[in-house]
């Protein structure tokens, strides 16, 4: 762990490793319908993160004792492929994975109408194919789109990204190196329409002012990602601004999710890294 630097360098001289501005996101592309077997799915590339999210359900809960009599359960499994990081990691779930699955569920559940699915479960499976810092946020972005793709009614989309501190500067969307060497990391998930933060974690050392600055910067990043998520969904479901309201209502009442229009591209599993 690096020692926190107390000196704040002037923003002009500070350069990020990949040349980004302090408040600039890494390039993001999202694709829906990548897993034909799933009820809904999405693939996200956020920087060098490559992540697949698949949604099954609402369906019967197994084991039954985990179900709730008056509402559905959103169960998220976050899992990293052994080859997603260097050195190889064991495929067995770690404590970190369990915790991230839990915080992801908490981040996404506020957007759903779980009271509509008593005794049922909505399963979200997230596979990290390649990790590049900020996997939990990228996973939430993909999972939110996958939930929409599954035809599950939602109050709002959930977008997520982190802000943090690197060499004394508050920066947006930490990459792998910044994540490891930076002084702090603040992942945030946000529902832009409802203006609610649904995931908030923090590791590192920050003053109260810096913490607030980081949260605000992350929220701005989430708003940008929200637009990318919307564009992705519009592209898939062919909605234009004019007809979006009627169409959205139609999908809400629709039990069956729409069939993927085209065969999904092979996901970039044969990754060049």
């Amino acid at each position, binding site marked *: *762990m690096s*020692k*926190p630097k107390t000196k704040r360098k002037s923003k002009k001289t500070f350069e990020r490793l990949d040349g980004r501005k302090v408040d600039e996101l890494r390039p993001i592309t999202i694709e829906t319908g990548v897993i034909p077997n799933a009820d809904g799915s999405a693939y996200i590339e956020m920087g060098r993160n490559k992540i697949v999210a698949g949604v099954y359900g609402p369906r019967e809960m197994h084991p039954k004792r985990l179900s*709730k*009599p*008056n*509402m559905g359960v*959103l169960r998220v499994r976050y899992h990293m492929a052994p080859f997603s990081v260097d*050195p190889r990691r064991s495929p067995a779930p770690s*404590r*970190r994975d*369990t*915790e991230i699955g*839990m*915080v992801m*569920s*908490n981040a996404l*559940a*506020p957007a759903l109408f*779980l009271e509509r699915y008593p005794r049922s479960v909505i399963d979200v499976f997230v596979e990290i194919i390649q990790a590049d810092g900020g996997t939990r946020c990228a996973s939430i972005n993909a999972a939110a789109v996958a939930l929409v793709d599954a035809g599950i009614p939602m109050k709002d989309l959930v977008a997520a990204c982190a802000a943090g501190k690197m060499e004394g500067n508050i920066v947006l969307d930490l990459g792998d190196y910044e994540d490891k060497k930076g002084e*702090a990391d*603040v992942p945030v998930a946000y*529902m832009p329409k*409802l*203006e*609610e*933060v*649904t*995931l*908030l*974690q*923090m*590791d*590192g*050392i*920050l*003053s*109260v002012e810096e*913490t*607030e600055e980081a*949260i*605000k910067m992350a*929220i701005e990043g989430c708003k940008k990602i929200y637009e990318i998520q919307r564009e992705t969904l519009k592209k898939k479901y062919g909605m234009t601004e004019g007809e979006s309201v009627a169409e959205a209502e139609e999908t809400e009442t629709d039990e069956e999710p729409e069939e993927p229009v085209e065969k999904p591209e092979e996901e970039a599993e044969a990754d060049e890294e």
Partner: protein
Amino acid sequence: MSNNIVSRLKRKKIEEVLDAGTRMDGRGLLQYREMTLKTNYLEKSEGSAEVKLGKTHVVIGVKAGLGTPFDDTPDEGVLMVNAEYTPVAHSTWEPGPPPEGAIELARIVDRGLRSAEILNMEDLGLVSGEKVYIVFVDLYVLNWDGNLIDACGAGALAALRNAEIPGYKVSKTNEVSETGKTIKLKLRCEPVPITIYKIGSHFILDATADEEEVADGRLTVTFDEKGNITTMQKSGSVGFTLDEIKKCINIAKEKAAEIRSLTVASK
């Protein structure tokens, strides 16, 4: 956050009482139950603390031993926090692998200590890549009546502050042997986690098991003694607005100082 009929009735009652500005046990919304903290009361562990917070009862044990460092930090010792939900602590707790709650508890306390860099890990290295100190902090829950994060966080700090670990020396041929003396762990800071629970529009501190069960969510903020935040964790399936987050940070900052002074007094 359970949803059976009993907890829905409970929720109704608890919210009614909160609306009236008080709690089921008569406390104020931001008032803690009485916390008692006893340290170094176990002989066979290197450091220990017993925390009682109302009926919540946890024991924290610090053990240190030798082990191999992680590949990516060959010169650094290891600090590990583990939480056990013992079946004795509550009627709904069963033996078996740790449930999500226990893992989250351990992780929040762990991150609170480690991201604050409470120990200089390089001081705990002995032979690069081969032998380092491993410091285990075990959080052992004996009775659950809510607010485990704050109880365990305070207890872990108190136990580490009082811990004396066996000293080792390294010979020229990199042989590691015990010196027969103990050394005190040097703490570089004093992080204390404070958890604020959200029930409807109310924010409360030190929730009981009943309050925890019906709460919509919570936010844990760990403060060090310099007023820096070292860990945050939002949990539960509701969102917080930015203003609510700011409010929680302010509540936590004030309370953390108070709880920290308790852990000092326990010396």
